[in-house]
């Protein structure tokens, strides 16, 4: 909001410079964002908070300065008569929306351009001059805070005003030359036949002041705040008047504002004051607030004497019948719509004493701080992935609906029975992105595409974040589940080296998951080959934890790759982190170190590609030989010299006793049995 320095000086007795005024205003919460010179004036650009409707005028700002600088305000008296010969001039039918209405008739006006001083005043605060009467109503609004409207009296049917709600289908062309239709909850200012203005929002074009106007009806009224807000929103009409009515104007200031405007019209448009009507059906209730002075210190820590607190409040227009003994009771001024409780009074005092006077103390310390239950484990997880070369992604929670049914979701998230299984926004800011994501994968694949577009072909990203789905019970709030997802593509990369190494594949992805599980201190996951919607057949697995599916891993299928225009393999994994973090952490128990040497044997098997490594290991373990202490992976070979449906797997078996050194024959016997079982059970052939 713009406030003129010269204008302020008309209203207050002060010698403060523009800079001093700006500093004071900022200090008390009317933040001055800039001081702009204009002709021989200075204009303050003030950023007002929405509760301070009372400061949307020069008078309101002057009142604040008078309190902070302890100086007087200049109020001009009026000698205008307030009698009315015609009680039917104004009828209020809907007093719940129009609490008070004043009308003044001014005759024989001459419409012409405003004098230069008035034009300059308006221009200084960014307002355009139109004609003397319109300019005066605008001027007085900016001076005293009450919006007002001037009608051409001769264009009002029966020359009278009816304030009422709109009727079904009622229409009117507003001042901005737009034909508008009204709904029945909107308040209109009408003549005996038709609407002539949208109450508190904008006047009608037909009844507005024109060059031919000779007689004026000047309206200064008070409308219900919520009603103005709704009407203004519905009509898409954000006017200066509506802005002020919404925030609340001073209902007790209508006559003063009317008189001020009338006197200016008499002076500048050579009019003659006529009838005056003041209809005030809905009286404002007086608000009294109790103040226990010690609450000022209790809430702000400020030491303020009772006298000083009372002085500030009085200067701001609060009246106190009782000051001593405590508690004092203050009556809230009619222009303040933001004060109703003791804390509000404390703030009034505190901001005028100055927040800079508030001390700097730490609260007494109690107890120890704590992170969120799993924050430390998630910290380790993030750090471990970063050490492994992954960058951390954060993607928008809302995604495009075109991703629906692209990805296989983590189990138990979505209830397929539901008609609306996903959480959906009514609309979005980013086109199409109305779905609350049920998977992290779409965001991660978008990120891969972004990086590919910047010629970055080697990408490893991970993300921790919530996914969403409708709850099965419609009374429940939507499900929010924290997942962990990762994506990788391209080759191994090295610090400071442009050349990449080996191409990354499924096992790098699996490795990253293992690192993640180690970081959150859980036992390892199991992998089971499975067809997964978004993954390429044969390079896809579901991920299990203690037999329960917690996610999926594999290579993105060709169809999705094609839509993203990926020309190289992209691997993804997604797991239900929230569920995993609820699992019991690994406990470490020491195992005695063996005193006896181990015998190790490496064996290669030729197996069908459908036979998994896990099956081989399982077959060894199932035989339960105590002396076979360990079985581990050595190598796998497929390709040249091998049938297409076969591969060679080499494992290492380790035999050892905790009591003695094993003899060769003993090891040989067990080893032979183990190999025989693998051969018969899995149809594997030992290779030499």
């Amino acid at each position: 909001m713009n406030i003129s320095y010269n204008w302020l000086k008309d209203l207050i007795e002060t010698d403060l410079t523009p800079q001093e005024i700006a500093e004071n205003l900022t200090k008390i919460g009317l933040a001055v964002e800039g001081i702009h010179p204009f002709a021989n004036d200075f204009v303050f650009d003030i950023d007002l908070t929405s509760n301070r409707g009372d400061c949307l005028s020069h008078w309101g700002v002057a009142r604040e300065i008078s309190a902070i600088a302890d100086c007087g305000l200049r109020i001009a008296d009026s000698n205008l008569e307030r009698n009315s010969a015609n009680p039917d001039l104004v009828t209020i039918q809907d007093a719940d929306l129009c609490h008070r209405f004043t009308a003044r008739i001014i005759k024989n006006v001459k419409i012409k351009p405003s004098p230069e001083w008035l034009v300059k005043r308006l221009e200084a605060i960014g307002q355009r001059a139109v004609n003397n009467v319109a300019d005066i109503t605008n001027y007085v609004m900016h001076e005293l805070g009450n919006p007002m409207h001037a009608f051409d009296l001769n264009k009002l049917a029966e020359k009278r005003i009816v304030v009422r709600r709109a009727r079904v289908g009622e229409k009117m062309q507003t001042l901005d030359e737009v034909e508008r239709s009204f709904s029945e909850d909107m308040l209109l200012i009408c003549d005996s036949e038709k609407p002539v203005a949208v109450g508190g929002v904008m006047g009608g074009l037909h009844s507005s002041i024109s060059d031919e106007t000779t007689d004026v009806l000047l309206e200064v009224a008070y409308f219900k705040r919520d009603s103005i807000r709704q009407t203004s929103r519905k009509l898409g009409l954000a006017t200066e008047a509506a802005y002020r009515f919404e925030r609340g104007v001073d209902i007790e200031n209508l006559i003063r504002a009317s008189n001020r405007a009338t006197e200016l019209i008499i002076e500048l448009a050579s009019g003659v004051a006529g009838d005056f009507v003041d209809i005030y059906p809905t009286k404002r209730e007086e608000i009294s607030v109790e103040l226990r002075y010690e609450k000022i210190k209790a809430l702000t820590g400020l030491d303020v004497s009772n006298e000083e607190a009372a002085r500030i409040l009085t200067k701001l227009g609060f009246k106190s019948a009782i000051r001593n003994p405590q508690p004092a009771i203050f009556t809230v001024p009619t222009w303040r719509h933001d004060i109703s409780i003791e804390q509000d009074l404390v703030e009034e005092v505190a901001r005028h004493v100055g927040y800079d006077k508030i001390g700097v103390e730490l609260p007494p310390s109690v107890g120890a701080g704590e992170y969120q239950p799993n924050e430390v484990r998630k910290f380790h997880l993030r750090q471990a992935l970063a050490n492994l070369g992954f960058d951390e992604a954060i993607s928008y929670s809302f995604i495009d609906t075109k991703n629906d049914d692209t990805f296989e979701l983590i189990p138990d998230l979505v209830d397929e029975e539901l008609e609306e299984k996903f959480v959906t926004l009514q609309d979005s800011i980013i086109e199409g992105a109305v779905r609350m994501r049920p998977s992290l994968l779409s965001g991660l694949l978008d990120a891969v595409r972004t990086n590919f577009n910047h010629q970055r072909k080697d990408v490893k990203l991970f993300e921790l974040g919530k996914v969403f789905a409708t709850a099965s019970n419609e009374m429940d709030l939507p499900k929010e589940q924290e997942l962990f997802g990762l994506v990788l593509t391209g080759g191994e990369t090295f610090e400071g080296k442009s050349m990449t190494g080996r191409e990354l594949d499924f096992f790098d992805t699996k490795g990253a998951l293992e690192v993640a599980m180690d970081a959150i201190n859980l036992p390892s996951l199991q992998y089971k080959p499975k067809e997964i919607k978004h993954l390429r057949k044969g390079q896809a697995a579901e991920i299990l934890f203690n037999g329960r599916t917690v996610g999926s891993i594999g290579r993105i299928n060709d169809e999705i790759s094609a839509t993203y225009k990926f020309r190289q393999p992209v691997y993804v994994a997604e797991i239900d982190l929230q569920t995993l973090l609820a699992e019991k952490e690994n406990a470490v128990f020491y195992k005695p170190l063996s005193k006896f040497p181990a015998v190790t044997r490496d064996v290669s098997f030729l197996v069908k590609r459908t036979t998994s490594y896990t099956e081989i290991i399982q077959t060894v373990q199932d035989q339960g030989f105590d002396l076979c202490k360990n079985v581990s992976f050595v190598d796998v070979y497929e390709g040249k010299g091998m049938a297409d449906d076969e591969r060679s797997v080499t494992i290492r078996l380790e035999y050892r006793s905790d009591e003695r050194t094993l003899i060769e024959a003993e090891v040989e016997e067990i080893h032979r049995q183990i190999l025989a079982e693998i051969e018969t059970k899995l149809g594997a052939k030992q290779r030499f």
Partner: protein
Amino acid sequence: MSEQKQQVLEIKNIFEQEFSRFADVRNTINNLSLSVAENLRHEISEFKIKHTGKKSLIAEAKKLIGRVAPEERGTFGQFVQSVEKEIVTAIDGLEEKLKTYINEVKTAREAIDVTLPARRPRVGHLHPLTLLRQRIEDIFVSMGYAIEDDREIETDYYNFDALNIPEGHPARESQDTFYTTTGLALRSQTSTVQIRAMERRGAPLRVIAPGRVFRRDTPDMTHVPMFHQIEGLCVDKGITMAHLKGTVAEWLRRLFGKDTKIRMRPSYFPFTEPSAEFDFSCFKCDGTGTFEGERCRPCKGSGWIELGGCGMVHPNVLKNCNVDPEIYSGFAFGFGLERMCALMYALDDIRYMFDNDVRFLEQFR
């Protein structure tokens, strides 16, 4: 004896003649290639065997010592030994020189460029928002606060009513808030966590709530429709605005250095009363407004950086959480993590935060 002596001198003569073929080596050694030098060294070691070994002439000459008259035997013996020593010294000297030279050449050949890049896998990077959040969380945990987070999709009660934002309040209008088709709100501030934390923990409490929030802002350089806030709440007996100021000053000092100053300006929020905005002295220009002779960018030359809002928790909010405002008082403060990140890293466009462009991410550690 002179006959024998003559014989020895003859041996010496023969040696010197043969050794003369190595005469140049001493001077030209630094020009020799490694293979020539190694061949030479081999040649010399054979030469050494020939002239000093068991079958050498000088070894033969030692046998003459017994044939010399006993009274001259001592002198002659010394003479033979001196000739032998002369021969050995000459050969060893040359051999040592070659050996040193060969080592030098070999070492030079294996010299590496120590300025070449190290050999290590590329290390990834945490998101700048994570890095900053972790730093701030660490500070508050050390100050006795519990970190809390909660739902992102909320009812109007938690997002508005409980926070003293009644129906019809401008902050509640749907142009700012995302709504689901079922009428739930994506939380527009982490203050929702204040309510849930107070409901769970009761008073007294000290809580920090970092989290994701949503507002219907069209993305531009300083706005994104999803961002992160950090909100602090302290409720106890006798809590004042001085404690609020002290707490905000303390954590900003721990983050930006001990000379950081803060100021509060009156403001308005529905959920606090009194309310304030807080600024801190610019970390770049130390509050002077100029940096390297020019108008400082982060603070736009004012020396102060606006960070967030704060105030004393509104009694209605306390009552909504069954905390008696006559017994307890509390302060709350909140600020945007993206904005703070942008300030700290001189980032001019916060949309990069959610692009996941590796060129952006890898700049932070």
